[in-house]
C-alpha cells in the first residue's frame, strides 16, 4: 500500500483521479501509481479508454462520494493464478450448471464501485469468446458470469484482474444459500409493504366520506368493505411487530414493538367489535397507515445497514483461499485440502493450515495470532498455525487441520457466536419500550376510571383508542431515520457499522483500550533510516533491484520505499541468490552486491518500545550503506490518546507483546504505565475487558477477535485479518486512527438527536392523553393527529441530524 507523500501536485491521475505525487509528475508520469498506469495501458490497447473516461467523468459529477479509490493494484497479477477455476473439482465448488451446458459463476469484485465498472465488466463479457454475459450488481459488488461450454472462467477472472479488480470466486454451497435466503427475505419485505400500503390508501378513500358526514346503510357498507380490506393488514402487515413483541415477552423483555403491538391489536379488536355491533368507532385506516409507515422506515434502515456492510468488507478472512498442494500443477481451493496433504508455503505468504513442517526452516511470525512481534525460527517437526506469516524461506507442511478446524478458525467461530448474541437495537429499544408501555397502560387505565367516574359512556372505547393514538409510532418512525442518517454519514468516510445501537453505546463509554501492534503502530516493516544520508536514493534503488523477486518482508519494504521515494527505475540483477536467514546477493552493473543482517546488529528495543532490525548493503565486499527497518508508531496515535484523555476517558493498552515493550510505548504516548498490559492472550484480554465499566476496544488482527466481540463497544482497523471487521461494532476501512474521534462525535450527535426526538414524542403522548380526557378522540381525530405528529417527529429527526460530519470537518480545518 502506498502512503501519500507530503509533496503532491495538483495533477490528477488520468485513470482514477487521485493526486499524482510530485516525484512522479517530474518524471512526466500522469498516473498516481504503477497500478493505474498498467490498467490504463490495458484499456488503451483494447480501445476502451475513451468511453471509460467519459463514464468516470459522469459518475464523479453525479455522485457526491469522495472516495478516491485506487483502481489498479500495485502488484501485477500472476499469470495463470486462476487456472484452478477450469478444473473439475472447482466446477462443482464454484459454479452452477444451467440448461444447454452453460455454467454460471459468481465473483465478488473488490474495487468495483462505479458505472464505468459495470460497463467494463460487461465489455469483458462481450469481448471474450465462449462467454454469454457478465453482469455486475453494484450494490453487492457481485459479478455473475455465464459461459458456454467453450468458454473459460479462468480467462474471465484473469481479464477482470488485469483491469484492476480482484475477483473472488464465490462458493456455491454457502454463498448461494445465503444469497437466496437474503433475497427471499427482501422480497417478502417489499410485498408486505406493498399490501399494507395499498390497503391503507384504499381504507383512507373509504373513510373520507364517512368523516365528511356520510351516514346510513351506505356508510355501513363502506365500513364492512373497510373491514374486509383490513384483514390482510392485520394478518400479514402487522405480523413482524406482533412476532417481535411476543418474542421479547417470552424472554421477559419489553421491546418497542410491544406498545405498537398493543395499540394495533386493541384498535383492531375494538374496530371489529364495533363493526359487528353496528355502532361505535372504527380505526382501520389509522392502523393501516401507521403500520405502512413503520414497515417502510424499518425496511429502509435495514437496507442501509446491509449496503454499508457490503461496501466495506471484503470476503477474505486473511487466510488464503488457494494453496499450493505439492504435485498439483495449479492452485487448489482450501476446502479441497485434506489432512496429510503436503502444502508449500513461500516466504511472505500466510500459512493457510495448521500443520507440521516436513522440510525447510524459516522464521515464522505469529503477530496476527498472538500480538507478539518476536519471530522464532521453526524447523522440521515443529507445528505452525494457520494465520501466521512465513517470513524467510519456503516451507513444506503436512496439513493437520484446515478451515474452521484450525485454531484461528475456532477463535473466529467463538467470536462470531458472541457476536450474534448482541441484538440489533438492543438497549435503546428496550428502555423506550418500557417507558412507553408503562405510560400507555397507566394512562389507559387512568382514563377509563376517570371517564366512568365523570359519567361519560364509552369510557372503555376511548381508553382503547388512546392506546392506539398514544403508541410510540412517532418515535418508532424517527429512530430508523436518525440511525440511517448517521450510518450513511459515517459510510462516506469509509467507516461502517452494522448495528445501529452501537452509535448509542459509543456515547456511553468510560474507558478506551487499544491493541498495540497494528493499531497504535503501522503493523508492518518499513524502511526507516538509511546511512549515509547523501546517497540514500541510489542505495535504496540498488537494494530494491536486488530484492525485486524476493518475497521476504524486508524485500517488500525495500520495494515499497523505492516506489514511495521514487528513486528511479529498478534494474534486474544477473546471478541473484537468496540465502535464507542470511540475506540476498546479486550482480548489477559489473559489481557484486550483498544485502545481509548488519554485523553491528540487530533486534533492539528503542525508546518507543518497537523492535528495530538493521541490514547492510555491501559492494564487492565493502560496506556501502546500512538500512534500519521497523514498525512505526502511527502519527495520529499520540494526538488521539491525548484527546481521549482530555475528554476524561481512561486510556490503556492491551497487547500480546512483552510487558517491557508495551510499557516503553505507553511512556512515549503519555499513558499511565499501569494502564499498559502486556503478555496477554486473547482470553486475558477478554477477561480484562469484562472487568471494566463500558470499555471501548480498538484493535485488528486475529488475536483481537475475542476482545472485539466481548467489549461493550469495539472498533476494528483494517490492518489485520479481515474477519475482525465482521466481528467489531465499527469497521474502519481507511485504517486511520483519526476515525475514532469522528465515531465518537457522530455517536454523541446521534444520541442527542434521539433524546430530543424522544422528548417531542413524549410531549405528543401527553397531549393525546389530555385529548382523551376531553373526549376528543374519535377516528377522524386519530386519522389526522397521528400522521401529523409522525411528520413532525420525522422533521425533528431530520433537522437534528443535518451536517453530521460537515461540522467536524470544518472544525478540523480551523484547528489545523
Amino acid at each position, binding site marked *: 500500500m502506498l502512503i501519500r507523500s507530503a509533496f503532491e501536485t495538483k495533477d490528477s491521475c488520468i485513470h482514477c483521479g487521485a493526486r499524482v505525487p510530485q516525484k512522479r509528475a517530474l518524471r512526466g508520469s500522469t498516473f498516481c501509481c504503477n497500478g493505474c498506469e498498467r490498467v490504463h495501458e490495458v484499456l488503451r490497447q483494447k480501445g476502451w479508454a*475513451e468511453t471509460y473516461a467519459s463514464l468516470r467523468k*459522469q459518475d464523479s459529477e453525479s455522485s457526491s462520494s469522495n472516495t478516491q479509490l485506487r483502481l489498479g493494484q500495485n502488484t501485477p497479477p500472476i499469470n495463470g493464478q486462476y487456472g484452478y477455476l477450469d478444473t473439475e473439482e472447482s466446477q462443482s465448488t464454484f459454479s452452477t450448471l444451467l440448461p444447454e451446458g452453460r455454467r454460471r459463476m459468481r465473483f465478488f469484485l473488490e474495487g468495483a464501485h462505479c458505472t464505468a465498472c459495470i460497463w467494463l465488466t460487461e465489455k469483458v463479457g462481450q469481448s471474450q469468446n465462449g462467454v454469454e454475459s457478465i453482469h455486475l450488481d*453494484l450494490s453487492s459488488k457481485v459479478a455473475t458470469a455465464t459461459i458456454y461450454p467453450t468458454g473459460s472462467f479462468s480467462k474471465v477472472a484473469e481479464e477482470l484482474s488485469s483491469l484492476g479488480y480482484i475477483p473472488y470466486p464465490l462458493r456455491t454451497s454457502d454463498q448461494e444459500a445465503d444469497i437466496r435466503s437474503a433475497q427471499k427475505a*427482501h422480497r417478502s419485505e417489499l*410485498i408486505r409493504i*406493498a399490501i399494507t400500503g395499498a390497503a391503507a390508501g384504499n381504507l383512507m378513500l373509504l373513510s373520507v366520506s364517512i368523516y365528511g358526514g356520510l351516514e346510513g346503510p351506505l356508510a355501513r357498507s363502506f365500513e364492512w368493505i373497510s373491514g374486509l380490506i383490513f384483514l390482510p393488514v392485520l394478518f400479514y402487515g402487522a405480523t413482524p411487530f406482533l412476532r417481535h413483541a411476543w418474542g421479547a415477552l417470552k424472554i421477559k423483555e419489553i421491546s418497542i414493538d410491544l406498545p405498537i403491538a398493543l395499540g394495533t391489536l386493541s384498535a383492531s379488536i375494538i374496530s371489529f367489535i364495533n363493526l359487528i355491533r353496528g355502532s361505535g368507532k372504527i380505526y382501520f385506516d389509522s392502523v393501516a397507515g401507521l403500520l405502512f409507515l413503520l414497515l417502510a422506515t424499518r425496511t429502509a434502515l435495514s437496507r442501509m445497514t446491509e449496503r454499508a456492510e457490503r461496501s466495506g468488507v471484503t470476503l477474505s478472512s486473511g487466510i488464503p483461499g488457494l494453496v499450493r498442494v505439492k504435485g498439483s500443477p495449479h492452485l487448489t481451493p482450501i476446502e479441497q485440502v485434506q489432512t496429510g496433504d503436503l502444502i508449500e508455503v513461500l516466504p511472505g505468504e500466510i500459512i493457510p493450515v495448521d500443520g507440521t513442517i516436513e522440510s525447510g526452516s524459516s522464521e515464522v511470525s505469529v503477530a496476527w495470532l498472538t500480538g507478539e512481534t518476536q519471530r522464532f525460527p521453526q524447523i522440521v517437526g515443529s507445528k505452525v498455525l494457520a494465520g501466521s506469516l512465513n517470513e524467510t524461506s519456503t516451507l513444506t507442511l503436512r496439513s493437520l487441520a484446515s478451515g474452521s478446524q484450525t485454531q484461528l478458525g475456532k477463535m473466529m467461530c467463538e467470536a462470531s457466536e458472541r457476536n450474534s448474541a448482541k441484538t440489533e437495537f438492543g438497549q435503546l429499544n428496550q428502555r423506550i419500550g418500557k417507558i412507553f408501555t408503562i405510560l400507555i397502560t397507566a394512562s389507559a387505565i387512568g382514563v377509563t376510571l376517570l371517564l366512568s367516574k365523570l359519567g361519560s359512556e364509552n369510557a372503555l372505547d376511548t381508553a382503547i383508542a388512546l392506546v392506539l393514538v398514544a403508541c410510540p409510532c412517532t418515535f418508532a418512525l424517527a429512530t430508523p431515520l436518525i440511525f440511517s442518517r448517521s450510518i450513511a454519514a459515517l459510510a462516506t468516510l469509509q467507516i461502517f457499522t452494522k448495528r445501529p445501537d452501537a452509535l448509542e453505546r459509543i456515547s456511553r463509554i468510560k474507558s478506551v483500550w487499544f491493541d498495540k501492534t497494528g493499531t497504535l503502530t503501522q503493523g508492518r516493516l518499513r524502511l526507516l533510516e538509511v546511512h549515509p544520508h547523501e546517497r540514500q536514493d541510489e542505495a535504496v534503488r540498488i537494494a530494491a533491484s536486488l530484492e525485486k523477486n524476493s518475497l521476504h518482508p524486508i524485500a517488500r519494504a525495500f520495494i515499497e520505499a523505492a516506489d514511495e521515494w521514487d528513486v528511479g527505475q529498478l534494474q534486474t540483477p544477473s546471478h541473484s541468490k537468496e540465502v535464507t536467514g542470511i540475506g540476498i546477493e546479486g550482480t548489477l552493473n559489473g559489481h557484486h552486491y550483498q544485502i545481509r543482517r548488519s554485523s553491528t546488529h540487530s533486534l533492539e528495543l528503542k525508546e518507543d518500545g518497537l523492535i528495530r532490525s538493521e541490514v547492510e548493503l555491501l559492494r564487492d565486499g565493502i560496506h556501502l550503506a546500512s538500512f534500519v527497518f521497523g514498525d512505526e508508531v502511527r502519527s495520529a496515535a499520540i494526538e488521539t490518546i491525548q484527546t481521549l484523555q482530555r475528554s476524561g476517558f481512561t486510556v490503556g493498552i492491551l497487547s500480546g507483546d512483552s510487558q517491557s515493550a508495551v510499557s516503553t510505548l505507553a511512556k512515549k504516548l503519555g499513558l499511565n504505565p499501569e494502564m499498559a498490559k502486556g503478555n496477554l492472550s486473547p482470553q486475558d484480554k477478554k477477561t480484562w475487558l469484562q472487568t471494566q465499566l463500558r470499555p471501548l476496544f480498538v484493535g485488528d488482527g486475529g488475536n483481537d477477535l475475542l476482545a472485539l466481540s466481548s467489549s461493550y463497544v469495539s472498533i476494528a482497523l483494517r490492518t489485520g485479518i479481515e474477519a475482525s471487521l465482521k466481528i467489531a461494532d465499527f469497521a474502519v476501512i481507511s485504517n486511520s486512527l483519526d476515525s475514532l474521534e469522528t465515531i465518537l462525535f457522530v455517536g454523541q450527535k446521534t444520541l442527542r438527536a434521539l433524546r430530543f426526538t424522544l422528548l417531542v414524542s413524549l410531549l405528543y403522548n401527553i397531549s393525546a392523553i389530555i385529548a382523551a380526557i376531553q373526549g376528543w378522540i374519535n377516528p377522524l381525530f386519530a386519522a389526522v393527529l397521528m400522521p401529523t405528529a409522525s411528520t413532525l417527529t420525522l422533521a425533528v429527526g431530520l433537522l437534528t441530524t443535518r451536517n453530521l460530519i460537515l461540522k467536524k470537518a470544518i472544525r478540523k480545518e480551523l484547528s489545523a
Partner: protein
Amino acid sequence: MNSALAIMIPITLAIAGGFIAAFIWSTQQGQNDDLDSPSRKILLDEVETQNQEKTK
C-alpha cells in the same frame, strides 16, 4: 347512485387487487432486487455510441 356504487366499488377493488398481483409477480421475478445498476446501465449505450461517433 347506490347501484352505480354497487358496481364501481367492486371494480375498484378488483383493479387494486390486480395491481398488487402484478407487483407481487414482478418482485418474485426478481425485478426489484437490484434497483441501482439498471438505472446506470441506460447511460452506457448512449456514451458508447457517442464515442464511436467521435472516433469515426
